[in-house]
């Protein structure tokens, strides 16, 4: 009896390992191993071929004196803040509108708002390059209609990043909106009904019911948006190629340049490690602060 049970246990082990081995092999080869070797490479100077030269923490020291890198960090923070400050509230706004109970055609609107999220960034970037064109672009045309001056969007160092932010908000808002909407639908209707009986205004209901009860969702949206925004690359690569005058050179764009155009593999790995550390740190800080404003029901 026990022998059979034990045999079943080891049989289960065998099949269990067999089932996870293909995934695990890929996982270790393309996720775990590169992480370790990436950290290791960051202490070397290496042009991609030939011998590696140990340089200690020189790559890290160099990073903080490299004005181009510091500018890339600044640009990335600017972009991320733009998305967090403008994009996330906008997503919440649309979600609240879509959550009105008498609304007809909710699925239709949700579909339209979500469309940009699934479309190819490479194609969408080209469309936006056209939309943001200074003389023939639709965006400037509409600005002109309401009496605003033309903006030299992607050609002006001051306006290039706002242009990228504008496009990224258009592309990404639908995703966050869908998550907010699911969060809103999880708030029990009875709270609102009780508040209405007590004579609460729309603002009160939003401030004292919706916001607190939605806070776990908001927290999730902020964390994921921050992580993805920090990794912005494609928009900068296709729309502006990092320019004008490095105004849209982001961290990942600079990492890409260092590794695959200038073949400074070690230096680029050090920047990757820095990016990872920043993301971990930012997430930890968010976890600490969340206790003050996130309410888990």
């Amino acid at each position, binding site marked *: 009896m026990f022998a059979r049970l034990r045999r079943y246990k080891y049989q289960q082990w065998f099949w269990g390992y067999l089932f996870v081995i293909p995934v695990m092999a*890929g996982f270790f080869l393309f996720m775990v191993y*590169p992480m370790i070797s990436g950290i290791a490479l960051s202490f070397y100077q290496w042009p991609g071929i030939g011998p590696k030269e140990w340089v200690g923490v020189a790559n890290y020291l160099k990073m903080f004196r490299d004005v181009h890198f510091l500018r890339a960090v600044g640009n990335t923070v600017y972009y991320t803040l733009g998305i967090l400050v403008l994009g996330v509230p906008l997503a919440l706004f649309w979600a609240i509108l879509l959550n009105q109970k008498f609304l007809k055609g909710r699925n239709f609107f949700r579909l339209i708002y979500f469309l940009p999220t699934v479309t190819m*960034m490479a194609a969408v970037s080209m469309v936006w390059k056209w939309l943001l064109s200074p003389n023939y672009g639709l965006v400037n045309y509409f600005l002109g209609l309401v009496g605003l001056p033309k903006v030299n969007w992607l050609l002006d160092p001051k306006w290039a990043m706002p242009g990228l932010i504008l496009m990224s908000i258009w592309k990404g808002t639908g995703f966050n909106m869908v998550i907010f909407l699911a969060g809103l639908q999880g708030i029990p209707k009875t709270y609102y009904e009780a508040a209405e009986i007590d004579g609460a205004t729309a603002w009160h209901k939003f401030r004292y019911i919706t916001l607190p009860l939605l806070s776990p969702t908001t927290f999730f949206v902020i964390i994921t948006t921050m992580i993805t925004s920090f990794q912005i690359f494609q928009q900068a690569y296709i729309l502006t190629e990092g320019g004008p005058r490095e105004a849209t050179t982001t961290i990942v764009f600079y990492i890409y340049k260092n590794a695959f155009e200038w073949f400074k593999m070690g230096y680029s*790995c050090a920047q990757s490690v820095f990016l990872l550390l920043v993301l971990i740190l930012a997430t930890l800080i968010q976890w600490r602060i969340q206790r003050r404003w996130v309410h888990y029901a």
Partner: protein
Amino acid sequence: MQTYAFRRGIGKLLLYVLLSLGALVMILPFLWMLSTSLKDEVSALQMPPQWIPRPVHWENFPRAWSAAPFGRYFFNSFFIAITTTVGEVITTIFAAYAFAKMNFFGKNVLFTIFLGTLMIPGQMLLVPNYVTIKKLGWYNTYWALIIPWTVSVFGIFLLRQFFRTIPDEFWDAARIDGCSRFRYIWQVVVPLSRPGIATVALFKFIGSWNAFLWVLIMTDKVELRTIPVGLRFFMSDVGTNYPLLMAASTMAILPVLLIFLFTQRQFIQGITRTGLK
């Protein structure tokens, strides 16, 4: 009473106006892309904009198609998206089943490491992965674009949630009747988890179709370019010929757009499911 009803009516109207305006903003870039793709170069630059192209230049599509090897790009994109989707679904079903329903030494440790890497930016791994791909001799081959993409932490996470809802009694009953694990997974687990599997497949297909940076780095041959990378090079070739660029963009977007329109419910449920767990 009348004023209350009146105010409610105004509120409703405002809601629909706002939502419609928002929808217009979201859809306008697509419409403008389509409109431009059917114009000639002169009328594309006309200001104020010509909303409906006159005359309609359908020939922009065949012209764009033959101005770059788009046939090859499409073949590559379809081939890679389909193989990675099939590959991922198969490996993910087995791994997710093992994590959800089986006991083996080290399972929880492995799964924790697994989830821990969800947060790691893929960009961080680019250089080491590039080195690995070169060492394996996979640079400029389909292997580089297929094998690494068949592993997805997200897919395993999602399917594990589905599989956990299947009662263990099913397996006990099947085992007593002499059913093998493979047959049980194929005939019981998979049919019961169809929505989850469909979601994983959809995400993978669309993700593969749209992927850019990995393809850009792991290949430098024209014959291996997928549509996004091909589009990027097409842009440097034709410069500011926006009608051709927009025609190419339309063709690039269309397959995924169609898939999304038919499966949107599945897709959106998949996102909310992972977002709220």
